[in-house]
Every structure is written in structure tokens, then in C-alpha cells.
């Protein structure tokens, strides 16, 4: 499974073929979560708390149950009891128990014969609340006297004396930053904050579920990981995992937000009660109120630097608010913060803080972008004040193969230096700046993940190939899988069809998260293809009557090789396939493993911004992403990930935010008031693919999906700060905030 040094010539990998599902996507034929129907299907709605924090005194379902068309009403009582750990958290989040913990927290659900009937019945459901004090701000939630979200939620990692809302703590580093600061010529310490943002996938969560009285069920849903959905639904509904078959629909964006389970168990619980299929589609407002925002943060970062640019010491405290549940990704925030730098003295602490907000969900490199914002802003300020070049300083301190990471291990082969060098050489970095414009650069880091993976490759009688993978395709991965299989088998790309298998037809696959798909399913595809090749060679050997070892696979054909192999014409895959019924039966290759070698990835971004000094408005005029992909299988989709991450970062940095009023209600639960960038907000984002092979993948692939969102917040903040002449320390940098900063600065 290690990097195949020999494999330096690719025929298919690195080209840019049309994706196999391209036509489905442009014609409307592709079927997403809400596009499925079933005979007798009911439509469901979820009733949600209008309060940020309230005791649920009573739920009277009788009138709603009696309403026209209503077939089932469920509340918490309809789910499994006695759960613990994360399953309990998931259940508590998707159907409130004793208390509603945030504005939008589900309290009941109704299934009726039409969506109108369900909506009308929802108004007849009577819920009596006793409103409790609430807190939505991360710093306030840690202060004495703040309402406690859940007593006893803290684990042993939290130092004594902290507020019960602080539920987990991460502490790591080496050396002593104070020693480092003492050596520095300049030390800067600043506080930074970021607001919660939403992944903002355009497809709302949707599913269609059937669960019979015999505990057997079928579920169709848009998810990044259907085996996970299967497991969670089984636990929450107290049924056996294998009795529920889950099929992943096409998925209309996830970015981490569809790794979590929000509605599927509810649809199944309604179906079980009504004994009919139930369709549940989230309205957009519910998507904002009750799914996936990222953590909001408050961070203190202190860095010391010598006049020559050497970073002598660094420390940071990262407080992450993850809603009314444990799980804010503060350990990632802390660990990613200083990852780009080889430091003698470094210390990072993270706190996971609970508030009356929706349960945070992963969002593209969860926790890392905020950390980069704080750290890279301080580095930029140090460079400005010491009159140093921002790329040279980063190069000087950059993490390299063999240096010790801020969180412990030594780095394997990594590509940070290469991205910095490529950025430095890029014409963007040396292009003259318009007056009043500013340039910002930033590095970013993400771990990447591998995870449990199973792949199967079956040969058809005509020599074409059906590849089954278990990782939902969130950005064109089927094309990459087809390419890797074609590369190994030596057949045309068009001869491979990749399908996302359902839970009944393939072994367990972890979620499509952690930028793992092209790495892990790719690796498994290559190994499954190699397994197939072995079988193909064996069939050829049998036909020829020679040893299997004497057969080699080249360009889609078995060929005799070695001294005693004899002289036979190459036997093409089509011929072996045609006869396979007679030569030993179906030919199927497969691979199952939990690979370990997901290579980490680094990026460097360059941004130019202009700030309008009268309105405080920012325009991003130029944007360049430089990132290490290890090996780009389909370069267009790698570029797509680079551009997509940068675009989301631009929204996060400038405009997007969760706005809560004094009552703890979300004020902007819609796309009209939660502003994601449109075409006219963005420049054509330029990309540079750097390829420093990952030693843990046969072709050198590293995950690319998440790292692209790590540098933008910082790079844009640096550009804006340099343009405005004031350091922006709070995100988003909306116009009013910039105008205030300009006023205060002048």
C-alpha cells in the first residue's frame, strides 16, 4: 500500500476526462435526497422549539393526531431508551428530551398524507414550555453565573474550577514559550474571534424511510456516510443494524454537515408508527436553525519573533463553542494552530464550551481555519512591524520532513515548503498592488483521514468493469475511482462504471469525511484492481497451461513473461471476461482495510483585497490557492476543491455569520440574510497544484478537500488589514465592522 516509486508514468491518472455522472447532473436526471417517492408515502414535518432554552412541561399531541390526514406523531418517547455516549447526544439533538436546548431544537414530528396536512397539524400540536435563562456567546458561557447547559457533562480533561459549560480540554506542546518570548525581539499577543458559519450546502437534508413492524427497513437519504446512518438509526430505534438497508442518494453538498444524523431516525420512527413510507425534507430555515453550524471561537495567541524572522516561541488558548452538546473541535483548533511551523517552544490549549446553540457539525477541516486566522494574523503583524517578507519568514520557520510537530510527532514527507516556494514564484505575489489595496498571505494545515474502507471490483462478461465503493461522491470522486481502476487494469476510463453501493451490498465504509475518499477509496480501488489482475492472470495462465507467476498484466492484456513462459499472443481482458464462466466463474477483486497513511496537507494562499473607506466594503480582487495534492488524479476536481474551499472561506471571512438576538433566537435563518457569495462576489480563483507524493498511497495521493478552507480567513484578514491599515481581529469583516475599525484607527 505504500507509495509506488516505480509508478511514475500514468496513462489515465492526471488527465481530465468528463465525469461519468456529468450528463445526469446537467439534465436533471441525477436523483438527490428529495427526489425519491414510494407508493403510499407520507410527508413529515418536525416541530421545533422557538426558545433558546426551555423546560418542556407538556406536549399534547391529541389534537394534532386527530387532524385531517395525520397518520403518526412522534416525540422522544418513540425512540430507544438507555442510550449513552454519542448516540445519546445524537438522539437528544434530533428529538429533545426534558429541555429544549436551542432555538430550533426538535420536540415532535408529524407524518400526514400531504405536506399541507402535516403543516396544518403542526399548528395543532400543543407544547407547553417553561422558558429558562440562556447563553449563546462562548466567552459569556464560561463566566461565573452563566446558565448551565448540562450539569456533569465535563470530562476529566477539564481543570478544576472551570464553569460546568467547559466540557473538554486539550493541552499540548513542548518547550516553554516563556523562554522563547524572552529570546524574542518582538512579542505580540492578541485576541481574535470568529462567528459560527454554516456549511451552506444548497440541498437541504432529505430522506425517505420505511420501517415495518418486523423491524426491517429501507432508507434513502442524502448523507456523506450511509453506514454511519445505518448504525445510528439502528441504535436510536433499537433495531438490528443489518435489518436496515440504507442507500445514499446523490448528495447536494455536505462539507461535513452531512456527516451528522439529523432527520433519518425521525422519518423511520414515524414510518414504524404509521406503517407507511415517510418522506422528510428539511425546510431551509430548519437547516440553518438545527443543523451543522461550525463552532464559534474566541482565541488568544502570543508569538515571539527575532529581527531575522525566527519564531522563538508561541502559545495559544482556543475557546470553541459547539452548541448545546460536547464536541466543538477545539483539539483540532489547538493542534492545527502552529502546525506549519517548526518551533522549539510551543504550547496550545483548547476548551470545548457548551451554549444554547445548535449542535455544531464538522465543516471542512473543522476547527483549523479559525486557528490559522489567529496565528497567521499575528505572524503577519510581526512581519509588518519588523519589516520582513511574509513568505520568507514562513519559509524560515516552516515545518519540514523530520521536524517535530507542535502536537508531538515528527513530520513525514510534507509539502509546505514547496507550496511557499510556488507561492513566492507565482506572478500574483510580485504583481503591483493598486492604491488602497492590500495583499495577504497565509498558510494552512489539515491532518486528513483514512478510515475503514471496502471496495469491490466486478468484471462483466464484455470486459467492462463495475466498481462498487462505499463513499458517497461529494465532488466528482466517481471519476477519480474510474481513473484509478482504469490505470491499474490498463483499460479505457469509459470501460469502468463506479457505483456508490448501499449498505447491504458492500462491507462497512466510514463516512466521506476527512478528505479521505480519493485517498482511501482510491487506495482500496487500486488494491482491488491489483487483486483482479492477479485473478485475470491466473485464468490466462490456466488457458495457456503455464504458471500464474509466468503471466504479467500489461495494457489491459495478460502476457507471458519470464524465461519459461512460452510464446503466446497477449490475451485481452475482454477475452478472459468472455470465457470466465467456463474458466472458474465470476471474476471479482476486492479490498478491505483501515489504511494508516493519509498524508497531511498544507496550503499557502495569496489574496488581494480593496477596502472602500466610506462604506467599509471589501472586494476580493485576486485570489491564488497553492496546495499540495500529493498526486492529482483528476486535476479539474482537485482545482474544484481548491476553489470551493477558498470561496467558502471568502464568505466566512467577509459576510457569513449566525446572528442571535437577545432572546437567543437565530435572526438570519435563510439565504437572503445569511449571505453566501454569488458569482459577482468572487474573482476567478486561480489554483496551483503542488505534488509532493504521500508515502502512504500507491500513487502518492493526499486528501485535498479540506485544507483549502484553512488559509482563507487569515489570508483575507491580512489583506484587508493591510489595505485598511488597521488589524482586523473579529470575523466576519462585515462593512460596518471595517468602518468602525477605520474610524477608531484614524
Amino acid at each position: 500500500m505504500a507509495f509506488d516509486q516505480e509508478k511514475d508514468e500514468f496513462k489515465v491518472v492526471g488527465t481530465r476526462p468528463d465525469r461519468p455522472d456529468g450528463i445526469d447532473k446537467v439534465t436533471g436526471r441525477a436523483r438527490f435526497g428529495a427526489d425519491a417517492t414510494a407508493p403510499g408515502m407520507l410527508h413529515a414535518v418536525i416541530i421545533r422549539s422557538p426558545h433558546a432554552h426551555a423546560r418542556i412541561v407538556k406536549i399534547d399531541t391529541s389534537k394534532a393526531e386527530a387532524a385531517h390526514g395525520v397518520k403518526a406523531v412522534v416525540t422522544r418517547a418513540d425512540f430507544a431508551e438507555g442510550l449513552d455516549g454519542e448516540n445519546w447526544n445524537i438522539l437528544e439533538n434530533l428529538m429533545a428530551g426534558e429541555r429544549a436546548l436551542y432555538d430550533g431544537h426538535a420536540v415532535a414530528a408529524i407524518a400526514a398524507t400531504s405536506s399541507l396536512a402535516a403543516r396544518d397539524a403542526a399548528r395543532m400540536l400543543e407544547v407547553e414550555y417553561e422558558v429558562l435563562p440562556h447563553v449563546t456567546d462562548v466567552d459569556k458561557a464560561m463566566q461565573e453565573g452563566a446558565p448551565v447547559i448540562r450539569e456533569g457533562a465535563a470530562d476529566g480533561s477539564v481543570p478544576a474550577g472551570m464553569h460546568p459549560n467547559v466540557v473538554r480540554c486539550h493541552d499540548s506542546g513542548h518547550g516553554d514559550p516563556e523562554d522563547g518570548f524572552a529570546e524574542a525581539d518582538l512579542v505580540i499577543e492578541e485576541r481574535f474571534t470568529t462567528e459560527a458559519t454554516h456549511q451552506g450546502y444548497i440541498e437541504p437534508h432529505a430522506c425517505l424511510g420505511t420501517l415495518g413492524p418486523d423491524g426491517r427497513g429501507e432508507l434513502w437519504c442524502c448523507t456523506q456516510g450511509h453506514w454511519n446512518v445505518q448504525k445510528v438509526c439502528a441504535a436510536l430505534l433499537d433495531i438490528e443494524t443489518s435489518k436496515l438497508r440504507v442507500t445514499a442518494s446523490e448528495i447536494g453538498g455536505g462539507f461535513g454537515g452531512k456527516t451528522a444524523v439529523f432527520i433519518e431516525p425521525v422519518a423511520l420512527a414515524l414510518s414504524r408508527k404509521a406503517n407507511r413510507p415517510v418522506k422528510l425534507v428539511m425546510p431551509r430555515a430548519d437547516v440553518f436553525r438545527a443543523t451543522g453550524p461550525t463552532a464559534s471561537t474566541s482565541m488568544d495567541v502570543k508569538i515571539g519573533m527575532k529581527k531575522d524572522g525566527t519564531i522563538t516561541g508561541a502559545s495559544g488558548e482556543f475557546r470553541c463553542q459547539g452548541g448545546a452538546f460536547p464536541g466543538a473541535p477545539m483539539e483540532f483548533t489547538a493542534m492545527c494552530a502552529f502546525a506549519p511551523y517548526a518551533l522549539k517552544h510551543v504550547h496550545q490549549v483548547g476548551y470545548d464550551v457548551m451554549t444554547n446553540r445548535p449542535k455544531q457539525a464538522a465543516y471542512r477541516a473543522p476547527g483549523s481555519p479559525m486557528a490559522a486566522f489567529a496565528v497567521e494574523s499575528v505572524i503577519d503583524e510581526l512581519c509588518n512591524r519588523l519589516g520582513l517578507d511574509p513568505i520568507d519568514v514562513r519559509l524560515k520557520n516552516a515545518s519540514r520532513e523530520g521536524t517535530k510537530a507542535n502536537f508531538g510527532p515528527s513530520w513525514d514527507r510534507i509539502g509546505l515548503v514547496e507550496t511557499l516556494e510556488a507561492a513566492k514564484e507565482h506572478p500574483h505575489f510580485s504583481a503591483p498592488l493598486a492604491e488602497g489595496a492590500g495583499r495577504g498571505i497565509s498558510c494552512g494545515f489539515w491532518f486528513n483521514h483514512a478510515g475503514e474502507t471496502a471496495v469491490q471490483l466486478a468484471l462483466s462478461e464484455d470486459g467492462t468493469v463495475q466498481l462498487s465503493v462505499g463513499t458517497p461522491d461529494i465532488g466528482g470522486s466517481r471519476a477519480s475511482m474510474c481513473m484509478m481502476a482504469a490505470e491499474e487494469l490498463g483499460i479505457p476510463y469509459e470501460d469502468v462504471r463506479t457505483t456508490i453501493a448501499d449498505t447491504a451490498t458492500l462491507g462497512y465504509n466510514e463516512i466521506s469525511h476527512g478528505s479521505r475518499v480519493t485517498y482511501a477509496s482510491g487506495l482500496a480501488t487500486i488494491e482491488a484492481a491489483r487483486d483482479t489482475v492477479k485473478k485475470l492472470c491466473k485464468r490466462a495462465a490456466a488457458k495457456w497451461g503455464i504458471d500464474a507467476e509466468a503471466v504479467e498484466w500489461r495494457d489491459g492484456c495478460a502476457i507471458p513473461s519470464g524465461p519459461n513462459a512460452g510464446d503466446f499472443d497477449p490475451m485481452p481482458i475482454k477475452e478472459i471476461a468472455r470465457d470466465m464462466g467456463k474458466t472458474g466463474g465470476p471474476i471479482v477483486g476486492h479490498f478491505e482495510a483501515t489504511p494508516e497513511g493519509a498524508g497531511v496537507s498544507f496550503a499557502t494562499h495569496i489574496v488581494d483585497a480593496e477596502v472602500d473607506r466610506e462604506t467599509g466594503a471589501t472586494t476580493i480582487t485576486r485570489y491564488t490557492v497553492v496546495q499540495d495534492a500529493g498526486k492529482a488524479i483528476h486535476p479539474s476536481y482537485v482545482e474544484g476543491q481548491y476553489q470551493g474551499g477558498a470561496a467558502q472561506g471568502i464568505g466566512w471571512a467577509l459576510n457569513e455569520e449566525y446572528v442571535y438576538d437577545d432572546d437567543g433566537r437565530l435572526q438570519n435563518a435563510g439565504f437572503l440574510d445569511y449571505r453566501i457569495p454569488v458569482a459577482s462576489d468572487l474573482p476567478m480563483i486561480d489554483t496551483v497544484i503542488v505534488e509532493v507524493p504521500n508515502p502512504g498511497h500507491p500513487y502518492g495521493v493526499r486528501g485535498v478537500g479540506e485544507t483549502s478552507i484553512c488559509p482563507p480567513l487569515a489570508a483575507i484578514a491580512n489583506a484587508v488589514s493591510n489595505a485598511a491599515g488597521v488589524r482586523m481581529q473579529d470575523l466576519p469583516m462585515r462593512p460596518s465592522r471595517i468602518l468602525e475599525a477605520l474610524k477608531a484607527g484614524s
Partner: protein
Amino acid sequence: MREIAFLLNGEPVELCDVPVTRTLLDWLREDRGLTGTKEGCNEGDCGACTVMVSDGSGTRTLNSCILFLPQLHGKAVRTVEGVSGPDGSLHPVQQAMVRHHGSQCGFCTPGFVVSMACAHKNGMHDFDVQLAGNLCRCTGYAPIVRAAEDAASEPVPDWIAEDGTLPAAFATASDGGVSGIAPESADELAALYVAHPDAVLVAGATDVGLAVTKALQEPERFLFLGGIQDLNAIDVGPKAVRIGAMATLSEIGDAIADLHPSLGELIRRFGSVQVRNAATIGGNIANGSPVGDLPPALIALGARLHLRRGNDRRDLPLEDFFLDYGVQDRAPGEFVEAVSFPRQTDRLRCYKLSKRFDQDISAVCGCFSIRVRNGRVNEARVAFGGMAAIPTRARHVENALSGQEWSETAIRAARDAWGQDFTPLTDLRASTAYRLDSARNMLTRAFLDDQGTDTNVLEVAP
């Protein structure tokens, strides 16, 4: 029962007994099984539900999630399924989207494909504008814009071109279908509305659509104004400009941009193409919104509003129509027939502040018409949206400017008047201080613009 007839992807459809507030999107997806058209928001914000609608006056994109079936009577509708040919051959924009890898997840793709096909048919190449009503979260738009550029030079396929000609013949064949709820003349509307003053008028439905789909409003009766032939004229006369209530923002933009370029620019930033193609001037005024974009501009132009109830007509200065938040000077059964304003040398400057350049509601919209004679302010008309509960004239500012030398002096003279005119709210779009500051800054801009300094707020994305 009443019948609604239209063409769907080239095939005639006749509907009886459908609820009049069924949206095209729900009907397509649930009744027709045409699930290519997507629902991303159901609020007109994302464009995933975009369809093409043609009638005698052309082909335009609309958001099908805020479009009621009766609004389609006599028109030709094309969904993503009909963008490719009857034999399955791909439209040039579809081919280009595949070739340029314009989809990542692909959920936004059908909406983009329809917007692109419509722009392609109409020969529009300003893709930042044409595509601003379609959200994509995956791609950063670059490959989509490249695909649109690439397809631009290809010919319009026959099946798309047909939509422009077929409906005329088709509409006559289905004449008189939607009786009682879709008047065809202003007279008919006047009579119906007097008889049913509790009916809700539906113009472009970009506001009403939301109210209904969110069940904020469940009225008994609707009157659809889309079929009225004599309410959408835009008449640019020698003395006055008169705009019928049913003129859409797109039509007004086309007709007015030469007379008042700044208003043209303001309209260009009103919602998105899909919204402008539906939204009418009548709806923008009658909804009484404090942040409607047209009223401040029209007030600055000295507009009068023409109202009609039965056969009684009256008109009043537009600013007097807005009485208080949610309250207008409109009697039961009375409707907006038109707006008019004097033909004048262009002195209008409009500034819209919002978080995003496109597809955003104004935090502050300020419009100025300042006439200068001999270096002094002769007449000032200043009106704002977003600064009060209703669109408001800044009379104190106007008075303070009046007679002043048109220079920094005038701006200084008006300094305190702003506080007398306005005590704006703090809300999620802006704070009190930001609103007041920017309103003041807008006057400075108006002055600088006048001096020819190139600082147009409309060219910067706030």
C-alpha cells in the same frame, strides 16, 4: 372549474381544479414527477428551482418556488428536462457544463443550466449578472462562468427557439380559461376587486409567494394580475414618464436606464435576474416595505402614485402613500394603476448599501436629486429606504441644503439635519450608527459624483 393552460417543455398541459396557490415547483416535482427542478430554499434566494418562461414578450427565467400555477396561463414553461432536446441531445450549455466540470455536487446545476440556456437564447453575456440569482456552494463559480462563455457562440437549438413562437397561437386557443381570478383588463380588475375587496392581489408574487408558502397568509381569494394587458405599459412621454403597475423591474430597468442611469444601476442590484423578471413596480410600492428599493428613487424623482377603485381614480405624491409601518393610504378594493414622474434632466443619484452586491436587501438605500443653479442648491429631493419604518423623504436635510453653496458647505450645513430626519433601528442588516454614518456619506458621494470624481458606490460590493 377554471382551467389553466400552458406549454410544458413543448407539450400542452391543461389543469382543472388545482389549488390556485400551488407553486409551479411543487406541481412539477410532486404531481408531474419532474424532479430535475430543485428546491434549495423555497424563498426565491437560491435559484435551484429556476425555470424558463416564454410569452409574446420574450423568454425569461423565474424562480418556480414563488410562482403560482395561474400565473403561467397562456405561457410556455421549460424546465431543465426540456433544455435538452426531445431526442435527448444536449443543449450547448449542458455540453459546456460537462466539459468544464461545472458541477461538483451538481445540486445547483439544473438551475444554472436553465439560467444559462435563457441567457444564451437572449444573447446575454454579462454572466456575473445573469447568474447572480443562482447559488453554488461547491465551485466558486469559475468553471460555471467558463462554461457559459464557451457556449455563448453556439446557435440556439430549435426546441428552445420554438418557445418564443408557439405560445401566441396556444394562448388564443386557451382564451378565457382562468376566469374570475385572472382579470384581463384593468376595468375587469377594478370591478372584481370592488366586489371582493378582501382578495389578495398577486402581481409578480415575489412577496405574496413567500407569505403564502410560509402560511403566514391564507386568504380566501386571490386575483392574479399577470394577464392584464393594459397595466404594464411604460410610457416615456415628452412631459412625463408613466409606468403601469404591472411593469416588471427588468422592463423598467431597460426602459429607464438611459434617462436615469443611476436608477438603472439600482435596479440592476434589485434581487436577481429571476426576481427582477417577476417583481413589479406596483408590488414594490404596494407592499409598503421600509426597504423597498424603488420608492426612495421614485420619491426623489417627484413621483405621483395613481390609484383606482372601481371607476374612481385619484393620485397623490408617492411619499404620502406610506403612512406607517405596514399601513398605506389605500382603501379596500383600491389598487395601484400606475406611477408617474415628470420628465427631467437627470440629477438622480441612487446608492444602495447591502452586505452583498447582488441578491441582497438594502440596509440603506439613499436617493438624491439635487438641482443646482449658479453654484447653489436650488431644489433638493432626498429620500431614503431603511432609515425609518417607511420610505421617507429627508425634509430637514432638503431644507438645510436648500440655498447653500453646492460644496462641502452644503454637506456641513446638513450635518445636524440627518438626526432630525432619522432615528434608524439597529437590526441584523446594520446598526443605528452605521445607517446614519452611511446616509451622511452618501450625500458626500452624491457631491463627489457630481464633481466627476469617480467614486460610485454602486460599483463597489459593500
